[in-house]
């Protein structure tokens, strides 16, 4: 559980986006677009509807006119190209009117318990107008230019879980279709993607009614929906240790199951070879200008080439082939390559793995209460076991506590500051369990082994939070990340990438150490394809994320 590895995760079968796509197909969801009132300038309202076995969900889209100087990915932005709400059911005219007064204001508006998710998106200036131009001219955009960006619009926040008055997750989590993590948010993004391509085709049509064409289905799928993620997401996996544990445990269990296979079936070997080829294409299409990512990409390219060669030498023809392959990867590949390999070996084993998605939510309330009867001796042992690495760190050294996590009063935007350069220490959020555990361990000096945690906490309320964490981490082996979150060299993008990989994101493109652009659903079918009449022809519903080469 180290950030360097978590920050090298790739999407896999258990990613939430893929869980959603499989569910939409297997449960026979129906898709329709009951409203698309967008005018010639790209302003208006649209509604996208998904009907499941027991519930209907509607994405309500508001398209706006946004002057370029107001276009920003930041939480503190106040206007956007498009804003969205995922509605629980079919919205009435009154609902849409109410939402028209609130959704475009985003954090400044209010939602009701009928709304599940709130989001917004901005145009990719690089690709939005270019695509319209091509289509209006009766031709398809160049695949290379599409791949350079990968989306015509990108979301800059997708809120759920009761934010701004929306429905709490607890009120909908019992629904089978929403039980796996972030399914509502993934559904919203899936529908947003459809909207972004629809609006581009619409504007081309408006520009040149006689001449305009729509995107060819293959090219259309090469567009995902982008996303810009910053520090708002970073604390999540620190603040939800049980949930993080369950995600990692599912992935580790999946890997263990595959590694225990005695012999690889021919079909699986064929598929695996194909996927390695497609992973290489993926890597070739993966654009970034960030020096860190460029290094990782170079490593990954090299790793995949080594993997290819290793496979050509019959790597899968041995007993316990996947286990041997994994061990070979550990010894021969960079972290990027190792984690890419993990994702790849899971791919051919749907039957073994897909059911693990049901184990990835968490009842966080169940582990919240502190066990005050625990002895000081036991607590010390737990701290040594889980946080021993933190005891080795000199917490008085400024380089080790250079950073401070805080929340700005500006729209409550989470930020990461420099402890010794800005006056923000009084506002520090508790996001470094390692340091807190080291402080706790010191504070236990002088307390008798047989005394109890309850007595200690009555005297030392300042350690209550870390005691709770330590007891949780003791029960859940993957709950705690063993890294210093205040280090001068901390890369928050590692935190972001871990969570985003579980979402199913691809094409991580860090723009700084704390901000990343990604792509969601690139290569995937569209709602009308997953739920449409040609459903039967959509073969592997969710492996499109490994793009076929453009000419294949």
């Amino acid at each position, binding site marked *: 559980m180290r950030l360097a590895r978590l920050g090298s995760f790739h999407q896999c079968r258990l990613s939430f986006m893929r869980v959603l796509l499989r569910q939409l197909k297997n449960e026979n969801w129906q898709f329709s677009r009951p409203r698309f009132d967008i005018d010639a300038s790209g302003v208006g309202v649209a509604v996208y509807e998904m009907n499941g076995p027991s519930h209907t969900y509607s994405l309500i889209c508001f398209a706006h006119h946004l002057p370029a100087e*107001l*276009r*920003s*990915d*930041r*939480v*503190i932005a106040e206007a956007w190209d498009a804003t969205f709400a995922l509605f629980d059911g079919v919205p009435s005219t009154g609902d849409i009117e109410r939402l028209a007064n609130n959704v475009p204001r985003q954090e400044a508006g*209010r939602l009701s*318990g009928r709304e599940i998710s709130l989001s917004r998106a*901005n145009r*990719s*200036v*690089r690709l939005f107008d270019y695509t319209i131009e091509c289509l209006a001219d009766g031709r398809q955009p160049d695949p290379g230019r599409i791949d350079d960006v990968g989306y015509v619009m990108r979301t800059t926040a997708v809120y759920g*879980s*009761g*934010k*701004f*008055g929306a*429905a*709490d*997750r*607890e009120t909908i989590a019992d629904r089978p279709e929403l039980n796996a993590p972030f399914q509502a948010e993934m559904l919203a993004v899936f529908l947003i993607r459809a909207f972004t391509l629809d609006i581009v085709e619409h504007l081309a049509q408006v520009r040149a009614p006689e001449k305009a064409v729509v995107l060819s289905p293959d090219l259309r799928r090469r567009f995902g929906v982008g996303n810009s993620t*910053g*520090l708002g997401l970073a604390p999540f996996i620190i603040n939800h240790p049980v949930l993080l544990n369950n995600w990692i445990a599912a992935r580790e269990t999946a890997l263990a199951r595959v590694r225990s296979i005695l012999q690889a079936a021919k079909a699986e070997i064929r598929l695996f070879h194909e996927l390695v080829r497609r992973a290489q294409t993926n890597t070739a299409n993966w654009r970034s200008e960030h020096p860190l990512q460029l290094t990782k990409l170079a490593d990954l390219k090299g790793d995949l080439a080594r993997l290819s060669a290793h496979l050509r030498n019959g790597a899968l023809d041995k007993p316990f082939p996947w286990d041997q392959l994994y061990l070979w990867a550990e010894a021969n590949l960079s972290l990027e390559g190792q984690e890419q390999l993990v994702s790849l070996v899971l791919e051919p084993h749907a039957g073994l793995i897909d059911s693990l998605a049901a184990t990835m939510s968490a009842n966080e309330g169940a582990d*919240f*209460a*502190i*066990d*005050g*009867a625990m002895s000081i001796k036991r607590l010390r042992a737990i701290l040594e076991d889980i946080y021993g690495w933190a005891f080795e760190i000199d917490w008085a050294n400024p380089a080790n506590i250079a950073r401070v996590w*805080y*929340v*700005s*009063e*500006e729209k*409550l*935007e*989470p*930020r*990461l*500051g*420099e402890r010794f350069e*800005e006056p*923000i220490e009084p*506002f520090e959020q508790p996001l470094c369990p390692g340091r807190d555990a080291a402080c706790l361990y010191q504070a236990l000096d002088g307390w008798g082994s047989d005394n109890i*945690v*309850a*007595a200690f*906490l*009555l005297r030392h*309320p*300042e*350690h*209550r*939070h870390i005691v709770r964490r330590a007891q949780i981490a003791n029960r859940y082996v993957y709950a705690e990340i063993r890294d210093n979150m205040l280090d001068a060299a901390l890369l928050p993008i590692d935190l972001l990438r871990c969570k985003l990989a579980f979402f199913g994101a691809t094409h991580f493109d860090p*723009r*700084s150490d*704390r*901000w*990343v652009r990604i792509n969601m659903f690139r290569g995937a079918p569209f709602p009308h394809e997953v739920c449409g009449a040609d459903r039967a022809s959509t073969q592997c519903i969710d492996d499109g994320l490994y793009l076929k080469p453009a000419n294949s």
Partner: protein
Amino acid sequence: MSHSLNELEALTKRAARGAGYAWGHAEEAGKAARWLAGYALPSTELLAAHLNQMQGREHAPWTPHATDVPWRCDGAMLCPLLTGAALSDRAFLLAEDEPIEFADTAFPLLLAPYIAAVARRIDRVIVLSWVNASLSIGGHGLSIAASYGELTVHHASMVTCRASRASGNDCKAPSATRVTIASRDLSVLSQLAARCYAPATESSRLLGAGAGLTDND
């Protein structure tokens, strides 16, 4: 204004922190607010009043001596959040069937969520009572014999809790999924919560987050 329970929990946690509670207590206060709201019991009204009286003060005098009989503190009144947490840490005491008493407790209803945590841990129904008020608190349900006025007293001179032999079959599960917060209470809690936020400055805006101020790419 209608709020989700998540909003209530987050606001209460930050307000408690702003009122001087440690993060561990603040997060439990957030859960406590949520528990009360789930049963449509007064939450923000009492929390706003209590956090208001705790902010700017030393909390030690309000902290129980958990080995006294009844529990008391050095100051005039026990803080129900600190007392509830201390009781929750000592759930085993109630499993022994002996009553626990608290002298001079502020806003005794605020103890109820912590007692529910004990009830879950020891799998018993626990009766929490003070003059003219009695709550049977199970791990997953609640039954009340008290008027609104009696539930929302600002102070009780003696509060008792005791594990009961009752089955808990007449305890009703929580059913509220939203909470309405009076604007006066919202204002008090928001102001306390705002103490957790760093002031906006030009350099913080430029350096603290990631993306630029305009993103036209």
